[in-house]
């Protein structure tokens, strides 16, 4: 969750969190009146806290409470009891599907509220498993903003959780549903000057066989289709390339493209020092990426 939020931890561990631009005394239907006013303890303002973190906090606190979550797609209620989410409700869903729906939201508020307690628990899955499932669904569903490429030859690429700066422009990565759409789009891109082609790059995760992100220390941060051996190879290659550049007195390594007998590989260094590797499918037009990376 990237929105700014206020958090008002209550003595028993529950948190009262709402959007910063909301009036702190504003009451929300169903929300405990005076829940914040009567509390003692610390009042905190948190920015950029994810809903998943808040859920984990509540579960760790072992709270028995109902939380109203207001997200981009509506409102939902999560019922916490002794470290578990035991029930969830949204406008259309109940139980685990509702919990997964709520956990898929990325912006909103998180407030304790009064709600009737369910007669029986509708969720038996642990909160960790629910969050994992929500994360997996988000990954699978997130076809956009997976990677972004720099406008110029200076390679710096951000992934979905990286801060977006003005210097970089996201490449829209979408599923290509229409057969032949990629070919049409590629030919269009080729007709444009390199800069324009880069700006209109429209590549999907379906365009890449392998997408891999390694931290500066070689830890696999994220992997899509990459084997452990590939990750090791990339980590070693990155080191060799860095040393080569250093030896020849060149500037810092930013990006590369290798052509193999059976494929291609693009690798670049992100702003945070991560190494990102993409192995496109044979039919994928790499010209937009080359433009962005200055290759």
């Amino acid at each position, binding site marked *: 969750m990237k929105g700014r939020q206020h958090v008002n931890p209550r003595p028993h561990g529950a948190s009262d969190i709402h959007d910063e631009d909301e009036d702190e005394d504003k009451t929300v239907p169903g929300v405990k009146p005076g829940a914040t006013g009567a509390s003692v303890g610390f009042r905190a303002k948190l920015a950029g806290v994810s809903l998943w973190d808040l859920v984990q906090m509540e579960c760790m606190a072992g709270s028995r409470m109902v939380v109203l979550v207001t997200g981009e797609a509506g409102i939902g209620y999560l019922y916490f009891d002794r470290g578990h989410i035991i029930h969830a409700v949204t406008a259309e869903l109940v139980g685990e599907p509702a919990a997964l729906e709520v956990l898929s939201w990325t912006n909103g508020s998180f407030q304790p509220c009064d709600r009737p307690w369910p007669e029986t628990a509708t969720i038996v899955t642990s909160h960790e498993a629910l969050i994992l499932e929500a994360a997996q669904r988000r990954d699978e569903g997130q076809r956009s903003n997976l990677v972004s490429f720099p406008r110029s*030859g*200076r*390679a710096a690429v951000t992934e979905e959780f990286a801060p977006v700066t003005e210097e970089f422009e996201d490449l829209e990565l979408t599923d290509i549903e229409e057969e032949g759409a990629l070919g049409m789009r590629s030919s269009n891109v080729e007709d444009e000057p390199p800069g324009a082609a880069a700006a209109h790059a429209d590549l999907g995760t379906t365009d890449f066989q392998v997408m891999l992100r390694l931290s500066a220390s070689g830890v696999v941060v994220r992997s899509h289709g990459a084997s452990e*051996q*590939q990750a090791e*190879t990339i980590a*070693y*290659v990155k080191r*060799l*390339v860095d*040393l*080569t*550049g250093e*030896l*020849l007195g*060149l*500037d*810092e*390594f*930013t*990006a*590369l*493209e*290798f*052509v*193999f*007998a*059976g*494929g291609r*590989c693009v690798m670049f260094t992100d702003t945070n020092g991560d190494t990102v590797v993409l192995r496109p499918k044979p039919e994928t037009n790499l010209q937009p990426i*080359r433009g962005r*990376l*200055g*290759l």
Partner: protein
Amino acid sequence: MLESMRASLATLKDVAGISGSFVCTQDGRLLSRDIAAVFDDDVLAEAGSRLCRVKEAFAAGGDDLEAGVMRFGEHKIFLKAVGSSMLCIVAAGGINMPALRMAANLVGRRIAADVSRGESEPPPVRTAAAAHPPETGSTRRPTQPLAPPGMRRFRGRAVE
């Protein structure tokens, strides 16, 4: 170094933006060079051997590296595998890549026979006396680590 190979490398400079080139074998021998003297042979051999190791690393995973381009700020290094050796071309960042690729392909083809001959030659053997001259109390140097084949410098330090 073969003069014919050097002459072939020199033709690469027809492409605007190419600073120079060199060819290095897998075991770190510099077969030929046509690049500014600021890069000494040892540096080029070491750089080349590392780039050959890049090829080896990918080969271990079943990927046969044919060519590649690496960007370092305002410069690029273009790689072209020639046998088990590597043709390395140092160029400006804004070089015309299709022209560079074409030139590298042609030169790679032209020097292939010479590279093959160079690869088959046994690496120069250093005699024990030359490699480890008798040490005297006054000339004794600190022990240096053994380097992998072809590597003469490691992190800026000369190694044996």
